[in-house]
């Protein structure tokens, strides 16, 4: 548990050096001197190292919360409506994965559900817990575990890829039938923008520095 008091108000980043090694070429850098909005890249191989944003965790928490609400909407309303020869059928987001099971492809169904709904939802929920704890300066025993799950899973969400897939499907289907976009379509569109924003706003090195600082 972090102690209350004046010491906590001091920016924890610039008082002690923060060494890390470039993930592409192993060169050591100190990123503690970064100021608000500045980012650092490796001088040898140009790989991104870290970016410091003063209110990063508050911003990411707000965006993650909004994204989670939109994902909820995206899963509960019709995504697209198909009109063909007087017949109508509606599709929801979970059906994109679930219908694959009825066609004998449970493994693919599991993967699709993971990439577009489950992994993004889990990452966002844990992200809310982590950024909430960091922003309110509280340490919990589960904080390192949560951070580990977030940074392991985050590269496996394919939200933006799926949305491009939705647009391609729209073009494909519109040649043979009429398609209407439902509420969930717009919700998921906004969700994918916010999700990408939250992920790009979250800095690995800065997050772990704060978690370590809180645990001391």
């Amino acid at each position, binding site marked *: 548990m972090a102690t209350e008091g004046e010491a906590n108000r001091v920016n924890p980043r610039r008082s002690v050096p923060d060494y*890390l090694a470039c993930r592409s070429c192993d060169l050591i850098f100190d990123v503690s001197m970064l100021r608000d909005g500045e980012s650092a890249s490796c001088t040898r191989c140009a790989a991104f190292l870290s970016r410091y944003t003063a209110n990063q965790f508050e911003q990411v928490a707000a965006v993650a919360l909004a994204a989670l609400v939109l994902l909820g909407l995206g899963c509960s309303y019709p995504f697209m409506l198909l009109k*063909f020869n007087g017949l109508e059928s509606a599709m929801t987001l979970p059906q994109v994965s679930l219908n694959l099971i009825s066609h004998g492809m449970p493994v*693919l169904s599991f993967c*699709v559900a993971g990439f577009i709904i489950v992994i993004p939802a889990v990452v966002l929920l844990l992200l809310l817990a982590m950024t909430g704890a960091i922003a309110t300066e509280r340490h919990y025993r589960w904080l390192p575990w949560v951070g580990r799950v977030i940074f392991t899973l985050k590269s496996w969400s394919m939200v933006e890829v799926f949305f491009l897939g939705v647009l391609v*499907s729209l073009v*494909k289907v519109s040649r043979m039938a009429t398609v209407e976009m439902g509420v969930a379509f717009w919700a998921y569109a906004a969700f994918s923008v916010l999700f990408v924003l939250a992920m790009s706003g979250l800095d690995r090195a800065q997050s772990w520095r704060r978690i370590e600082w809180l645990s001391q």
Partner: protein
Amino acid sequence: MSNPQATAASRGLACCHLCLKLVSQETHRCPRCGSTIHSRKANSLERTLALLMTATILYIPANLLPIMITDQLGQSIESTIVGGVILLLDMGSIAVALVIFAASVIIPLTKLALLYHLCWSVRRGPPGTVRQRTAIYRGIEFIGKWSMIDVFVVAILVALINLSNLLVIRPGPAALAFAGVVILSMVAAESFDPRLMWDRQEAIDE
């Protein structure tokens, strides 16, 4: 910055792959996040090559088998990945055809070829090209998941076009095979350690 030329390995340090904490190479578990510490990814080359070969083999059924089956008025039409691209071209959707062709053919094949090249280059690559090769690796890491787009399109069409007896779209076995290619090559890229290329470059420079 103390000495900007020092690598973690040359100082007897290792960087946690997950939380980037710098610790001594003797450390087994990261004190900050609890991950296992490796100075270099474990068995990086063997693992990457094994996954790459599996992905390459799986790419064959992914292209030969149908990815999507359309049942229209008692008639079944099977289409492969490339067949779908040709169909889109016939329909005049050139932009969409290009997106699918890039995501399902160009990107996966280029990615596999480049990863083989990177694995080879760790031991025999021309010195002085490490910077470019590292950039190639970052490109591969970034672009990997975009190949999944055709699998998503099939899943969406299956869910959307489901008008009993009149028009039904079913997923073909190639959808699973292609998803396997994308996932395996993403894991292969993750198993590759670009620092091995720099280690060799440093050995040459000395």
